[in-house]
């Protein structure tokens, strides 16, 4: 049986903000960041926490990482309560909350890791070995970054160092808040591969937030969609895709004379988009049953003297799922 790494039950959190009404007057405003979020994360899986801006992702990550006290609800990390046993929770997790900031500029990468390692209670001899290992794992030594001042780091180096800090204690749980934000493709790929390996080969539980749907689809074993402070859907990427109305897109590129519209109308197609360039038409048709429409469609175009250049049926992407649930919550 898989071990429960994180159990969150009905987490609620309100923030108080001030709406300015002149020089001296301000009105208190309540923002409900979480309205009862529950989920579980198991060892050995990467769970993506996705949602639009302000959905409550970072609030959730901060509560699990003991950096924010929830107003209501409970959460446990490896059976330790995040509020009542915060210190025990802290021993079981590594966090990366921002790739850009979070280190001392006048210390080198290695010195920064030594500083935080000591702060996290690691013994000096094991810390040295661990830092050497992490520098190699994240290729910081190869990049010549280990003994360079943090203030001279590129964003990619900063992200790798952030991940190295999260891994300092070799924790069983990692909380990574947008770890590839702003990174170049090679650095982002390196981090994605490492995250998958850490979960699948080392058995770590990983909570991963991102806005990059392509990344979520290839990194995450399971996805929790959150919107307006509530979990709106949960499952594997494939399961989530099956949750939205099964609209598929026929993407067709044809060459021929200018009467595409009447052909589509003759087939009672209502939802379509046509782009034209140099006598070539790119047609996108949204339909519930593409298989039934396809034969008739091709026949019509051939009979009207069109040459078919390409034809494919597009399945919904995770982005479609994301947009569907985000719009549903509006």
């Amino acid at each position, binding site marked *: 049986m898989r071990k429960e790494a994180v159990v969150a039950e009905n987490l609620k959190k309100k*923030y108080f903000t001030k709406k300015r009404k002149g020089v001296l007057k301000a009105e208190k405003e309540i923002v409900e960041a979480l309205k009862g979020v529950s989920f579980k994360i198991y060892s050995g899986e990467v769970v993506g926490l996705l949602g639009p801006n302000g959905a409550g992702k970072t*609030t959730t990550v*901060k509560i699990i*990482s*003991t*950096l*924010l*006290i929830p107003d209501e609800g409970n959460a446990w990390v490896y059976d330790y309560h995040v509020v009542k046993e915060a*210190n*025990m929770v*802290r*021993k079981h*997790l590594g*966090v990366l*909350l*921002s790739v*850009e*900031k*979070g*280190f*001392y*500029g*006048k*210390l080198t990468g290695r*010195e920064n890791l*030594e*500083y*935080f390692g*000591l*702060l*996290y*209670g*690691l013994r*000096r001899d094991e810390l040295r070995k661990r830092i050497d290992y992490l520098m190699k794992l994240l290729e910081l030594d190869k990049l010549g970054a280990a003994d360079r001042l943090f203030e001279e780091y590129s964003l990619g180096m900063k992200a790798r160092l952030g991940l190295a*800090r999260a891994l300092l204690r070799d924790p069983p749980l990692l909380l990574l808040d947008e770890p590839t934000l702003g990174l170049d493709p090679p650095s982002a790929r390196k981090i994605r591969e490492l995250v998958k390996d850490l979960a699948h080969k080392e058995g770590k539980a990983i909570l991963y937030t991102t806005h990059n749907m392509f990344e979520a689809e290839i990194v995450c074993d399971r996805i929790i969609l959150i919107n307006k402070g509530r979990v709106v859907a949960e499952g594997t990427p494939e399961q989530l895709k099956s949750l939205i109305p099964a609209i598929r897109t026929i993407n067709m590129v044809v060459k021929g004379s200018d009467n595409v519209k009447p052909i589509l109308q003759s087939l009672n197609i209502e939802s379509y988009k046509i782009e034209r360039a140099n006598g070539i038409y790119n047609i996108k048709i949204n339909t519930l049953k593409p298989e039934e429409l396809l034969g008739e469609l091709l026949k019509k175009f051939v009979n009207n003297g069109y040459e078919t250049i390409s034809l494919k049926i597009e399945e919904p992407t995770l982005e479609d799922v994301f947009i569907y649930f985000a719009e549903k919550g509006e």
Partner: protein
Amino acid sequence: MSLWNMVLAETKFVYGDVFRRKSVLLTMIAYPYILALFVILLGYAMGSRQVFIEKTGAPPEIFFVTAGFLLISILGVSDDLLWRPNFELWLGTLQYVLISPLPRIYRYIAIPIPRLLIVVLVGATSIIPISIYYYGLGGLIEGAAIILMALLSGIFFTTPIMVIMGIIYGAGGESWRIINIVRPLLLILLGAYYPRYLMPLMGRIVSYLIPSSHIVEVIQLMMIDKLNVLYALSLIGIATALFVLYAPIGIKSINYWETKKLKEGIR
């Protein structure tokens, strides 16, 4: 072990932040001389050196170099404590520091310790040479005694600073502007530049509540050769008692701020 780890970590931080920034280190070393020069030139414009010696019992050069040294020593030790939450918030390190599982108090004890090295260094480049210049080799012992007292004064300032920072940050948020208002007041009340006996009654009362101000008085009495051992020991005793008294309040105060921060969330 954990406390030792924290001291080692802070030593790394001080090395990077002060010793690696040569301009910061040089400014700290030069500070007692710059301030003494400024005050003395201002003093000469308004009065005479002799009047100062008659009034205070010490040459203005040594008095103000000592005062400058004391200020930079106390600031060097306590400022990091006072500014640290702001600094960490600005750097984005605060959240990574707060998730340390080690006892919070260890960190606040560890922060000032490596900075004591700076006190010794600045003392060796200011108090020692000027004491030798004025008093010969005997001045070396007096200079060393002043450095020792300055170290004590720096340490004794930590618990009241903890009380103050917890209250300021807890009640007003991490605003450097509030710190900028409170800090000069604290420096005046220490009595380094403005001897305590010259202060108005309210100022004197508040000054008595600051443990380090008693050590500053001991140093001033040493400089004017009016040091009574029994009186000095009683001042050190009062300072120690206040330092110990403020410790639990300081811890509570810091905890209050941190709990508030954890309820609000760190942005």
